[in-house]
């Protein structure tokens, strides 16, 4: 294995616990990852040693807190190769980041008759904001289809860009259901050539592979901190010129330059988009998370997950009556969704839980995608740096047991 999983697991205190007396086999990192000691310690250190509200504090504690908080922003900027840390906006989660774009940029720039293009594989977070924006503004919403083997049908995009009505293309960098890694750089090039902006949802990609905003070419990119070993928050990156020109989203303290009784002026980036008191210790924890991942190396993490996937796919295929969604190796990340002829996804998850195995069952916030494949729900196992082949073996054995119990 490319990674020393034994050593990595020791960094995650949760693996010390037993589930129903069994070893914890955590295969639900696509929903949210576990947290390493370094991240928990970074937050505890802020709370026990340097906590105070950030900005404009003129005492040592407040300065330390502000330095740690802004220092984390610099780390995050480096993590995604953003040209300027001021383009990194701390948000509640990836969902809020995408909504921020829909509210602040969208309402001013999407008009009746315009088109927004998204894909069939989007998570609701990168679908419902655009659907509702389109409804509200009288714009058209169009979907780039997904092929039967779960790839993005890129040939369907140019026709949707041809008439010049498309103002925005929103696309996931990695599908949280299919694992698909669509050709987002090409999507961005096509969209930009047609004069449309590009929003990338990197919530699922950023924890598992290098994400470089300058190489991928989006105008906005959203990330979930809690999926990459950090606490419950996220970041939105946007091009400076765009963010500068946008009106604020939330109004209140810190985001203003001056407030008069009947009008206000806005602060500079990133503060313009950060109203009120942020989760200070959590931002520092997020900085610690990207330090932790960076020390291991995003390339190495990606290679490790590819190795697990190469091991898992053929073994899973042997489970009787299994249907695995998504493309083959090489075009996907470490997320495997499937369904069994013999068992409802709920029952798969509940029975695997008895063996200490955590997977997710449901539509994974991607109903239109499940509808496209004609199923209401699926089961999903997802890998991260702390998983190894033993975990895959446990999953496969557990699925055979499920089939035995529920098959007839």
């Amino acid at each position, binding site marked *: 294995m490319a990674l020393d999983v034994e050593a990595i697991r020791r960094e995650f205190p949760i693996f010390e616990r037993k589930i*129903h007396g069994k070893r914890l086999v955590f295969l639900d990192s696509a929903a949210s990852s576990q947290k390493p000691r370094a991240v928990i310690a970074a937050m505890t250190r802020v709370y026990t040693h340097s906590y105070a509200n950030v900005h404009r504090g003129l005492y040592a504690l407040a300065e330390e807190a502000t330095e740690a908080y802004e220092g984390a922003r610099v780390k995050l900027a480096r993590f995604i190769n953003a040209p300027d840390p001021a383009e990194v906006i701390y948000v509640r989660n990836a969902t809020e980041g995408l909504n921020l774009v829909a509210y602040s940029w969208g309402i001013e720039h999407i008009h009746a008759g315009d088109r927004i293009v998204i894909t069939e594989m989007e998570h609701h977070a990168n679908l419902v904001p655009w659907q509702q924006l389109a409804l509200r503004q009288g714009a058209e919403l169009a979907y780039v289809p997904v092929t039967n083997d779960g790839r993005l049908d890129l040939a369907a995009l140019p026709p949707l860009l041809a008439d010049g009505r498309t103002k925005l293309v929103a696309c996931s960098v990695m599908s949280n259901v299919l694992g698909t890694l669509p050709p987002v750089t090409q999507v961005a090039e096509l969209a930009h050539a047609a004069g449309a902006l590009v929003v990338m949802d990197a919530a699922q990609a950023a924890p598992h592979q290098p994400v470089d905003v300058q190489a991928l070419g989006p105008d906005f990119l959203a990330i979930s901190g809690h999926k990459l070993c950090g606490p419950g928050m996220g970041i939105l990156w946007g091009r400076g010129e765009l963010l500068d020109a946008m009106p604020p989203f939330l109004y209140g303290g810190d985001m203003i330059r001056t407030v008069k009784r009947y009008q206000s002026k806005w602060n500079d980036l990133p503060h313009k988009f950060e109203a009120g008191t942020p989760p200070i210790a959590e931002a520092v924890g997020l900085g610690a998370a990207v330090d932790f991942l960076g020390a291991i190396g995003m390339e190495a993490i990606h290679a490790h997950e590819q190795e697990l996937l190469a091991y898992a796919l053929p073994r899973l295929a042997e489970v009787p009556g299994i249907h695995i969604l998504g493309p083959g190796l090489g075009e996907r990340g470490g997320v495997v969704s499937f369904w069994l002829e013999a068992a*409802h*996804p*709920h*029952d798969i998850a*509940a*029975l695997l*839980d*008895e063996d200490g195995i955590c997977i997710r*069952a*449901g*539509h994974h916030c991607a*109903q239109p995608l499940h509808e496209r494949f004609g*199923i*209401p*729900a699926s089961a999903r196992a997802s890998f991260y740096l702390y998983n190894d082949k033993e975990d895959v073996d446990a999953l496969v054995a557990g699925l055979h047991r499920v089939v035995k*119990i*529920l098959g*007839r």
Partner: protein
Amino acid sequence: MSSDLYREQLLDHYHNPENFGVLPDADVDVEMDNPTCGDVVHMTARLDAEGRITAVMFEGQGCVVSMASASMFTEMAVGKTPEEVAAMGLADIEAMMGGVRLSMGRVKCATLPLNALKLGLKEAGKL
């Protein structure tokens, strides 16, 4: 708790459900789904002159919990008045299922048949 759920009794109901099908000449005919997981039940029921439920049938698709609950519920509801059904809740379903304690994630599955029948009685003007 899950070990509880996959006991013989529930699996029996799942594999060989009681009253599976559609009741002809039904007074109540309702379909309800649980969009998060795709569970769906179609319940039909007949009431006697005094308004008591005399027969219930179901068909549908779903997990062991929702299907076993539906199967058991078609038996349990017989003889009850609409008001008695309306007064039932999670605790009654848990008792019906052999005293299992349902986790948050399964409550909606287990109560789907009950909630469907409540809705059906209301729509049929019996409640």
